[in-house]
């Protein structure tokens, strides 16, 4: 072992250590574990110019601060003196960043040399690196090469030999000068004797102590008197040491690189679209407009599909006639026509919207627009007493409130989490975005677009008011949270994956909705079907009893029942409507209808004829802003662990939905 020279490879992950290691050692390598750790240990050997070398691939880590096992292992290995020379790898295509390891090494007295890897990429990027200038500044050999090209290794061996024979040490004097301007550093350094950790200078140790390095601090605590250590503690606690030393290191790197590297200065500027989105005043309107446009665009594929659903719905009459002619019992006819066909027709009409909305929102996310949306609303979040990252649960809630609720998990502060969830409920979910446009199209035709705009505006107001109401008890305004968002570049959606997702989701929605709508429809049909001729069905009696109250909110009792059902899930409302507005009046009317042939051809027209526009508007607002669904309720409880707050939120939403319905009704009365 003694006649072998040992090289240690030091570098950040992906610096190319393994590539170099493998190229140098070939088959002569051995892989094991570092004692007591699960970190991989790779050792090998090679011969060059009749000299034998042992080589150790140190675990890749960002720096030499004791933040992880990898870093501690690396440091201990260097301190142990096992390495005669350390080869520090850096990525030459991004030296400003990758020389950090070198800067962190400064102050360690083991001989070293610098390998600037990825020369090919640096060249591609138009970077010109003056190796000689770097050598002069650093006082160690510097090689520029591509580790994946063995032909270039000649310069590596030369640098290696030079480093070994001359025992070249990194010149860290300038960095130390910079350190000595930092608050607390000089006092710390003066207190630390040389040789606390072998091969590490006291200035290196002082800088690490300033950075709150746990291992260094423990070492100091063991070697120093309690009084002295107390002083160290006071000094480091007084400053943001890591920020200071980090700044000094980056400044040192820049100084080293200045004059040694010239690269074409990339003139980066924001794209036109981003200049609008990140604009102080234009940002919000631009983003809202984008979402609105997205929603409107999502209706385009939905409307033809709606036609298919309607056509399916008109099968009711011929089927009923056919069944009557073969003498099928009335119960069966009614069940088949009023429940099964009716429900399926509604579901078909809705599916187009599910497809459209999912597709558009998926696309907005994929392209990178959603990231801009969350960026733009960050400051608004702060005003609501929330953190910027609360935007994410809101965005997810456009798809599904439950997802949004679960997404609020990223918020640690309980009060903010509860508030986030409470607000996320106001965001109409995917089901609302399909049931609501569909019903709006039935009632208002092209007016659907106006309704959607009104809903979006109401949503924003709703969230604002809710934040004011709930916020007081949940969050305190002093909690400011900084946030940095790196906006992703715009890119084309991955169409394949996107469509697979949209189709999967549409199919899933279909299956679930069929169950819910059918179930609700059957229940309400049963309740509204008079099995005993001449008697009034239960539902009818309850309905007429509560009608005076429901009228107050602008809804007939049938719509009110649908509203209640929408608490289970928005699509539940369709089930109720299907059962209750089926073209016949209750009780005996069914028979008359069959006899008199008074069944309307088109269900949608029938619905439009039976419900006045103000009523329809009231109903639409009521179900949109009703509590999202039972599952969302359950997951809210699961996230916030408070039955009291869950109940509060649920009751609040039911009440607000009814108030909104009342307002919508009166606004409707003014219009029509």
């Amino acid at each position, binding site marked *: 072992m003694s006649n072998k020279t040992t090289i240690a490879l030091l570098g950040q992950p992906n610096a190319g250590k393994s590539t170099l290691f493998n190229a140098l050692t070939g088959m002569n390598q051995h892989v094991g574990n570092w004692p007591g750790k699960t970190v991989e240990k790779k050792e090998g050997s090679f011969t060059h110019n009749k000299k034998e070398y042992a080589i150790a691939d140190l675990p890749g880590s960002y720096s030499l601060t004791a933040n992880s096992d990898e870093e501690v292992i690396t440091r201990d290995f260097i301190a142990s003196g096992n390495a005669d020379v350390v080869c520090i790898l850096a990525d030459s295509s991004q030296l400003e960043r990758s020389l950090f390891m070198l800067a962190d090494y400064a102050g360690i007295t083991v001989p070293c040399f610098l390998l600037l890897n990825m020369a090919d990429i640096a060249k591609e990027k138009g970077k010109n690196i003056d190796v000689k200038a770097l050598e002069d500044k650093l006082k160690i050999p510097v090689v520029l090469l591509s580790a994946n090209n063995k032909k270039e290794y000649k310069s590596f061996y030369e640098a290696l030999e030079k480093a070994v024979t001359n025992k070249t040490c990194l010149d860290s004097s300038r960095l130390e000068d910079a350190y000595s301007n930092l608050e607390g550093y000089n006092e710390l350094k003066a207190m630390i004797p040389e040789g606390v950790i072998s091969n590490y200078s006291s200035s290196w140790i002082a800088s690490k102590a300033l950075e709150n390095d746990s291992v260094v601090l423990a070492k100091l605590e063991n070697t120093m008197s309690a009084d002295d250590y107390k002083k160290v503690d006071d000094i480091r606690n007084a400053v943001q040491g890591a920020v200071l030393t*980090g700044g000094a290191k980056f400044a040192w790197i820049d100084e080293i690189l200045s004059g040694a590297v010239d690269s074409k200065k990339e003139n*980066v500027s924001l794209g036109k679209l981003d200049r609008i989105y990140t604009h102080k005043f234009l940002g919000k309107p631009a983003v809202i407009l984008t979402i609105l446009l997205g929603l409107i665009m999502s209706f385009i594929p939905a409307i033809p599909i709606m036609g298919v659903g309607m056509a399916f719905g008109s099968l009711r009459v011929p089927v009923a006639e056919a069944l009557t002619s073969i003498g099928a019992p009335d119960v069966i006819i009614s069940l088949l026509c009023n429940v099964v066909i009716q429900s399926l027709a509604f579901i078909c009409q809705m599916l187009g919207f599910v497809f459209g909305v999912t597709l558009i929102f998926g696309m907005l*996310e994929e392209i*990178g627009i959603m990231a801009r949306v969350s960026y733009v609303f960050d400051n608004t979040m702060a005003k609501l007493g929330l953190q910027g990252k609360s935007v994410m649960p809101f965005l997810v809630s456009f798809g599904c409130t439950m997802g949004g609720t679960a997404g609020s998990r990223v918020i640690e502060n309980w009060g903010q989490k509860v508030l986030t969830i409470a607000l996320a409920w106001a965001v109409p979910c995917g089901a609302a975005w399909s049931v609501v446009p569909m019903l709006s199209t039935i009632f208002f035709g092209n007016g659907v677009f106006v309704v959607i705009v009104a809903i979006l505006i109401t949503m924003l107001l709703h969230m604002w008011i809710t934040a004011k109401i709930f916020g007081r008890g949940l969050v305190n305004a002093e909690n400011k949270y900084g946030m*940095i968002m790196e906006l992703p570049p715009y890119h084309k959606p991955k169409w394949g994956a996107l469509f697979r997702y949209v189709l999967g*989701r549409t199919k899933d929605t279909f299956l679930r909705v069929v169950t819910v709508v059918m179930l609700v429809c059957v229940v309400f049909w049963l309740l509204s079907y008079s099995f005993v001729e001449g008697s009034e069905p239960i539902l009818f009696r309850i309905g007429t009893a509560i009608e005076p109250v429901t009228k107050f909110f602008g809804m007939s009792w049938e719509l009110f029942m649908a509203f209640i059902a929408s608490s289970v899930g928005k699509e539940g409302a369709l089930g109720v409507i299907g059962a209750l507005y089926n073209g016949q009046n209750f009780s005996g009317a069914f028979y008359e209808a069959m006899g008199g042939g008074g069944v309307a051809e088109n269900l949608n027209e029938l619905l439009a004829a039976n419900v006045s526009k103000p009523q329809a508007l009231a109903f639409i607002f009521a179900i949109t802003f009703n509590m999202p669904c039972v599952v969302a309720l359950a997951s809210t409880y699961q996230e916030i662990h408070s039955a009291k707050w869950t109940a509060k939120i649920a009751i609040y939403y039911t009440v607000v939905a009814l108030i909104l319905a009342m307002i919508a009704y009166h606004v409707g009365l003014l219009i029509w």
Partner: protein
Amino acid sequence: MDKLLELLKDGHARTTFMLAKELHTTSDDIKRKLEYMENMGIIKRVAIDMPSCSGSCSGCVSYDSCTVPSDEKVNCPSCMPSQELLNMGEIWEVVK
């Protein structure tokens, strides 16, 4: 870098580009400093890979797959594929 941290703490969202402009430096400079601060535990990355569940609120067919943490998650077909389709950029926040 202390100026950078101050900006990060003031409660406003900024992109790295805006930070670079305010501090008269380059985005790359900001990015390497963010990387450093992340490694030093001064700031942390916000996980935006969140369960974005099925289209309607009645939950996925397999409701559980949306509530278990993402690393154990068996993606149900109607959930947003977590890796495949996310272009949300990166978010960091200052560790308190």
